[in-house]
């Protein structure tokens, strides 16, 4: 009898990091389906490009770092980064934009900092921010109109052609995003005038918030609720993010003739994707309960500020990256009170 001699605990819950990543990927599926339904197959193609690039880069770097490739690929973190990046990018961006963003995310933002768990910045958002500032034309002109507004929709062949070779036909399918449109027009038009645009209420003027986008946001919200239920993350970050964004939209932007209204802030951009899938990335977020509230609220405030007074119509990536900087500091000053202690410790121990 050869008895195993190790210390407690002996019982552990089954599963591993890969299960966590796969659960998050599963929760993204409704959002991806909705995106494809309303905006054509662009995102699906981008997901394929990004995933292949990410896995290739991951394997290459693991090889260079002399790590077991199979073991690390099975944590699916590279795949998740790729998918998050692909659905954040404009669906009809050229393939090389996606590849550059993915390569930068995996090689620079993740592995050069030490790999999974060590990166201070959200890799997908680093990749996104890089291409956003480097290739502004491709990044702003590749958003498609909702398929419902296009006579023939967008076919797979056409999508592939736009992404991989000729961008001649792209003008026929692209359109500004609702947030972009509203922000640009609110200076010269009233809310009711802006809402005349079919981008908001559709070709038949049914009452809605933003054609397509609203359902995409609902789908990501549902996916996020699923992850909350599965206890993959806690409520703190998404709730404080949405709450701070909503409060600012109500108190500053109550006049929809001058500012983008709360409905568009919440349901017309990348807000739900950001709140439930980007800001909740545990590696780069705050880890204490109080810290998560501060972190999420900070992202909400920054999103509002950048969207309202900055030059980017959507702002999730920059808001998240800026708060990534602050997360370690927030953690040190938001430690919970330990059992039996009168008060919580603040900051790190002083050096002698």
């Amino acid at each position, binding site marked *: *009898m050869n*008895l*195993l*001699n*190790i*210390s*407690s*605990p*002996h*019982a*552990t*819950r089954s*599963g*591993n*990091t890969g*299960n*966590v990543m796969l659960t998050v990927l599963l929760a993204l599926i409704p959002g991806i389906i909705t995106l494809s339904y309303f905006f054509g197959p662009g995102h699906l193609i981008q997901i394929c490009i990004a995933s292949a690039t990410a896995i290739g880069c991951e394997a290459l770097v693991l090889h260079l770092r002399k790590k077991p490739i199979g*073991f690390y690929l099975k*944590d699916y*973190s590279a795949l998740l980064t790729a998918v998050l990046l692909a659905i954040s990018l404009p669906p009809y961006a050229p393939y090389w934009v996606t590849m550059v963003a993915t390569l930068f995310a995996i090689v620079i933002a993740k592995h050069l900092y030490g*790999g*999974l*768990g*060590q990166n201070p910045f959200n890799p997908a958002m680093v990749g996104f921010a890089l291409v956003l500032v480097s290739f502004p034309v491709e990044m702003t002109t590749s958003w498609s109109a909702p398929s419902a507004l296009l006579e023939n929709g967008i076919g797979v062949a056409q999508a592939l052609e736009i992404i991989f070779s000729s961008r001649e036909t792209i003008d026929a399918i692209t359109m500004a995003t609702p947030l972009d449109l509203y922000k640009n027009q609110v200076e010269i038009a009233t809310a009711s005038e802006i809402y005349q645009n079919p981008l908001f209420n559709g070709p038949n003027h049914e009452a809605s918030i933003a054609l397509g986008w609203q359902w995409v946001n609902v789908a990501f919200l549902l996916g996020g609720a699923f992850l909350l239920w599965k*206890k*993959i*993350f*806690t409520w703190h970050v998404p709730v404080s993010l949405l709450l701070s964004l909503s409060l600012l939209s109500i108190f500053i932007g109550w006049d929809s003739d001058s500012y983008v209204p709360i409905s568009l802030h919440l349901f017309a951009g990348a807000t739900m994707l950001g709140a439930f899938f980007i800001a909740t990335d*545990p*590696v780069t*977020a705050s*880890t*204490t*309960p109080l810290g998560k509230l501060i972190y999420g609220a900070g992202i909400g405030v920054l999103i509002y500020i950048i969207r309202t007074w900055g030059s980017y119509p959507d702002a999730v990536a920059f808001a998240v990256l800026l708060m990534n900087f602050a997360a370690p500091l927030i*953690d040190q000053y938001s*430690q*919970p*009170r*330990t*059992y*039996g*202690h*009168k008060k919580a*410790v603040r900051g*790190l*121990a002083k*050096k002698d």
Partner: protein
Amino acid sequence: MNMHHFKLYDFDGGIHPEQNKSQSTQLPITAAKIPQKLILPIAQHIGAPGNPVVKPGDKVLKGQVIAKGEDFVSCNLHAPTSGIVGAIEDREVPHQSGMSATCIEIITDGKDTWIDHQGLDNYLESDAASLIDCIAQAGISGMGGAGFPTHVKASIPASKINTLIINAAECEPYITSDDLLMREYAMDIIKGIEILQRILLPEQCYIGIEDNKPQAIEALQIALKENLDDTHNIHVVVIPTKYPSGGEKQLIQILTGKEVPVAGIPADIGIVCQNVGTVHAIYQAVALGIPLISRITTITGDAVSSPQNYQVLLGTPVTDVLSQANAKPNKIKRLIMGGPMMGFTIASTDTPITKTSNCIIAASDQELPDPAMEQACIRCGMCTQACPAQLLPQQLYWFAKSSNLEQAQAHNISDCIECGACSYVCPSNIPLVQYYRFAKGEIKQAKSDKKSSEQAKLRFDIRNARLDRETAEKDAKRKARAEAAAKKQAAKKTAPPVTSVSGDATAEPSVDTEALKQKVLAAQTRVDKARERLAMAQEQNLETADALELGLNKQIDKLTAAQKSLEEAKS
């Protein structure tokens, strides 16, 4: 009983691991067979080990004291059955480290002959002191796991205590020994609580029990109703099943909403906690005069064909009771004493059952497979959600991993109760508790290193001071000699030889004091040297320190005597 309106509090974190309790609750408690020999460690409790009072070859009766706890924080040990004392030597004892320690072996005679014994008459009218003495004589220590001597806990002044908590939560998976004990001996337990109430005079008493033990709850309630001494104020409080609700600190929090202050004990907030098994042992000792010589132990795990609870004599080798439970030795992959969350593996089946052995899990490979490979920490924070002590396990992990002991201490690593909830939930399969144990060990080592370096410095300073003084004294002597010689020379030159008679007469006593001075100096040197040796021994924690201290005192006495005679000679 106002059980229905009892306000419960919750503790932070906690987990719901698979319970695996039903396997061992199907059969009633069965007496384990008397094995051929018993191995009884003299330290089965926290505190000083007992001193053996028998020698190899002695005949002992069941219930006879074989080791006496002579310190206050120590415990007596009794022969669990009659027989002959075999060896008294180091054997493998149940301990995380797999270490060996002094054990008394008893070759049993199978007759199970009792020594004369009887309980206290009218024990509910006895005074606290004699009840506590009775508990102390019976060698009872906490049976929930920690093994703290019960008479010490019972000696807390009653004026400080307002609440007595009986820990019947039994929150760890697999373990059912308290459950079965309560089902079968509920009345004895209530009587045991009454004894504690008599000693501690609490205003209220709660039995905290998890809701996964309905039969035990019912048995206790029936016993409370049937109990004729209706003056008790005992409440059976049913708490939700959540690990680690049976942790002392957590149970106190659930029942009272209070927290035991850091580095304090429950008595600081007016609470005494006793395990339900301990309470039963108290009843047996006080009412029946039966010392702690056996306990209920759950024998379970996939490798055991008929898992159940046994009443096992202390000192029974695990192998004996495993074979009685039809264990398949080839199937055992991990043998755990205690539960799967906080228990420890034992390397040999010869390890004996002791006062704290509530459970033996003979786990198969499928049941508790080898630990999965550790993955990178993704800071998911599931550990923080699970921690019942409101710590930041993930931060502690990073600090422990980088040996950043300063920050680990600042993040209260010493408040970790090692319940294992964080490791249990970790999706990256990081053995977090092992990291904390490492850091705690390093912190302890650093503290003791610091202490011994301080002592070394002290020793060095003492030695330097002595050397300086010795040099100064030598110089002074040399100078004195030179002066004396010069004087003599001068005297020879100036004075006629005849006057030297009177000169000699005055010089004589000075020679006498000179000798005494030498004596004092020599004594001083001996004292200094003894002091150095003592400092060195203390630094290395040598056992000879006491003897050296005695020696030093003698040298000091001699020095004082020498100084005294010098004073006398001078005057």
